[in-house]
């Protein structure tokens, strides 16, 4: 309890008189916010007026609030900084809900600022009024409804701090219009004071020595690492630990790139559609280091049979993740960067040497060699081939975003990520339409890198309007649409579990389904759509044109849409059906 702590407040800084709206902008600048994705409306236009008088924040107008909020997420995922989006009250705010839920699931630092109706209208069913504070309670890390203009500087400071610190997450700040209009002299907080903030938790040496003791005895140790590594910027510590301990690494999809997938110890990622080697190795391991992960059902399958022979050490910054889905032997509450760094120091001090684990290593490398991701060549362009070609043409250095579905899994399978923050995808919530807006956000954050949305035709259409944002704002985000005219992942499940009955999974005319063999049926015409938006685009059908088409896309400075026509018949493999175990993995 901290109630008796005497706090020494430094002398506060008092600003000149300004409106609440000016103070919001001023405070965002003070927090280092450089980009804002904001769609105006009656209850937020005061803040937009203030933004016109400020040249330190780049305000990007999305064409739908959902696009703006996904772009803010993409920006946050690419940088680790807070992504900030803004919308008006009512429908503007409700359009942010999906991204807020998404950020909550994927621990993304998102700050959503919303206008609210005048306080005198709150609770009166006023025009464009919703209880946004109440509506978002279960999907935020924290939220504020600003009732006093004097609170604004503290609230903006806390919102950015909370979104980005500890386990990151979304924070909502709802600001009534009268607060935005009210004049006052802001008092800027000198430091963030959050009563319940205990600082970063740290594992004890006793705990860590026990971990090392387990490691020195283990014959089949494995590292199962996730988004927590990236949030904590612990990639270097992880690499040192894996190398020194001589431990294979399999990541979650959230953790993709936190350990270079090109490293000899990498088994890429595991789970439902992950590598066979990763799944087998985790399943057979006798010691499992679960670092910055949450035992999601897409990773574990039937959780009681997950890693059945392993002693599990679970290090997480969030105590509520311990023993949530899987009861573990050693739950350790710690910042993962500290824990890994300290483990490395303790190994150094004790001159830890990895024991000879040749039989285990041979076995794992055997799996890795025997079961790479693979597909049968076809006379048509296959989605897997398109991704692999993109990988080659970008030398693995691009930032890839995705929508949700088959293309998302293939993107993660056939692109090898050597860096973290390079695979940006809606993984926990699985929000279709995430790909292109998040690519816009990532490109704004990293203008010198290639940013490509690998998308499906279903997902891409969900936020197709953001082509306008990219064009008008001159944001060179590319989209490579793997167009199979179907909702491919649902089709795959229909094929596997529902006797191929098509339950509204065909996106064009079902009596004239488009395909590489029936180009007349292709619907819609993405090239024409892009043309309408003033975005250069190209359709590619023939295999021999693929590489050159990708080169054309990559050579373009601004946005570009590449419509790749592929058959719908491919399935994402391997696959561990939901709720099943590694033993029931479908490999081919």
């Amino acid at each position: 309890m901290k109630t008796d702590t005497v706090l020494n407040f430094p002398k506060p800084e008092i600003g000149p008189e300004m409106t609440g709206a000016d103070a919001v902008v001023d405070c965002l600048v003070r927090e280092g916010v450089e980009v804002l994705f904001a769609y105006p409306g009656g209850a937020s236009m005061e803040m937009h007026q203030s933004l016109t008088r400020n040249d330190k924040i780049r305000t990007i107008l999305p064409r739908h609030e959902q696009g703006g909020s996904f772009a803010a997420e993409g920006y946050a995922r690419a940088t680790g900084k807070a992504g900030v989006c803004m919308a008006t009250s009512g429908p503007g705010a409700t359009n942010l809900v999906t991204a807020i839920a998404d950020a909550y699931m994927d621990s993304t630092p998102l700050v959503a600022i919303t206008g609210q109706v005048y306080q005198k209208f709150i609770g009166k069913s006023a025009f464009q009024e919703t209880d946004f504070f109440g509506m978002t309670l279960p999907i935020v890390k924290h939220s504020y409804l600003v009732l006093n203009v004097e609170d604004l500087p503290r609230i903006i400071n806390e919102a950015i701090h909370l979104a980005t610190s500890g386990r990151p997450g979304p924070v909502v700040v709802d600001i009534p219009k009268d607060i935005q209009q009210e004049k006052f002299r802001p008092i800027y907080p000198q430091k963030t004071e959050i009563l319940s903030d205990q600082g970063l938790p740290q594992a004890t040496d006793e705990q860590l020595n026990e971990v090392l003791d387990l490691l020195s005895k283990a014959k089949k140790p494995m590292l199962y690492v996730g988004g927590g590594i990236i949030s904590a910027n612990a990639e270097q510590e992880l690499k040192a630990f894996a190398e020194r301990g001589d431990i294979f690494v399999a990541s979650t999809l959230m953790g993709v790139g936190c350990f270079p997938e090109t490293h000899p110890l990498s088994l890429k990622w595991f789970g439902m559609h992950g590598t066979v080697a990763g799944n087998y190795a985790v399943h057979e391991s006798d010691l499992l280091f679960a670092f910055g992960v949450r035992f999601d059902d897409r990773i574990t399958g039937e959780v009681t049979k997950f890693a059945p022979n392993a002693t599990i050490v679970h290090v997480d910054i969030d105590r509520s993740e311990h023993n949530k889905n899987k009861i573990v032997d050693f739950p350790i509450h710690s910042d993962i960067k500290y824990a890994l760094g300290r483990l490395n120091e303790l190994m150094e001090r004790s001159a830890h040497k990895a024991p000879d684990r040749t039989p285990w290593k041979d076995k794992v490398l055997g799996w890795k060699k025997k079961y790479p991701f693979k597909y049968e060549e076809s006379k048509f362009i296959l989605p897997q081939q398109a991704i692999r070609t993109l990988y080659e043409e970008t030398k693995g250095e691009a930032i890839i975003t995705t929508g949700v579905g088959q293309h998302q899994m293939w993107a993660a399978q056939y692109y090898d990520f050597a860096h973290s923050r390079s695979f940006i995808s809606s993984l926990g919530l699985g929000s279709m339409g995430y790909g292109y807006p998040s690519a816009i956000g990532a490109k704004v954050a990293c203008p010198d890198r290639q940013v490509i949305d690998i998308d499906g035709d279903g997902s891409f259409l969900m936020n197709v309007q953001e082509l306008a944002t990219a064009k008008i704002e001159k944001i060179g985000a590319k989209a490579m649409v793997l167009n199979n005219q179907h909702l491919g992942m649902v089709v795959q499940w229909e094929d596997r579990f529902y006797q191929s009955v098509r339950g509204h999974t065909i996106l064009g005319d079902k009596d004239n389904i488009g395909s590489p063999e029936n180009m007349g049926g292709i619907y819609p015409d993405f090239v024409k759509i892009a043309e309408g938006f003033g975005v250069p685009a190209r359709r590619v059908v023939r295999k021999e044109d693929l590489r050159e088409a990708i080169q054309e896309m990559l050579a373009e400075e601004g946005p570009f849409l590449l419509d790749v026509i592929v058959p719908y018949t491919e399935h994402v493999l391997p696959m561990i059906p939901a709720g099943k175990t590694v033993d029931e993995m479908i490999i081919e």
Partner: protein
Amino acid sequence: MRHTISVLVENKFGVLARIAGLFSGRGFNIDTLNVAPTHVETLSRLTVVVKGNDSTLDQLIRQLERLVNVIEVKDFREGQAVDRELVLLKISADGNNRSEVMQICDIFRARIINVSSADVVIEITGDEGKINAFLRLVEPFGVIEMARTGKLAMVR
């Protein structure tokens, strides 16, 4: 198993909704709930009595601790804390049976705080066992209205 959960929170609007939401989102029905300020002006204490399996509740408590406005959470299993509840109840009592009601009140150290020709209002505090025993005895007279604070608890 029944748990008494004591939650120290910042005294701000919305805190109760966040906490209640964590319970309702998992289908827990709250048996009793009390919220009031503490000796520190900026802090309030919530006391929640809830039934649920231990591991789910354990998870829920950790998720409570994660809330930004929550300072501290204590989970009192039965017997670990002293607890009290205050009950106000209005029961039918006219000239014929009023003295009988007063006798029962005396035995339980309950107080009659209002009398009219047809009913009395009684105040009683105690732990769950005492309150339940008292309620069983006065029920036959006819309970017209009842208001309870819900359980309050403090570690021994």
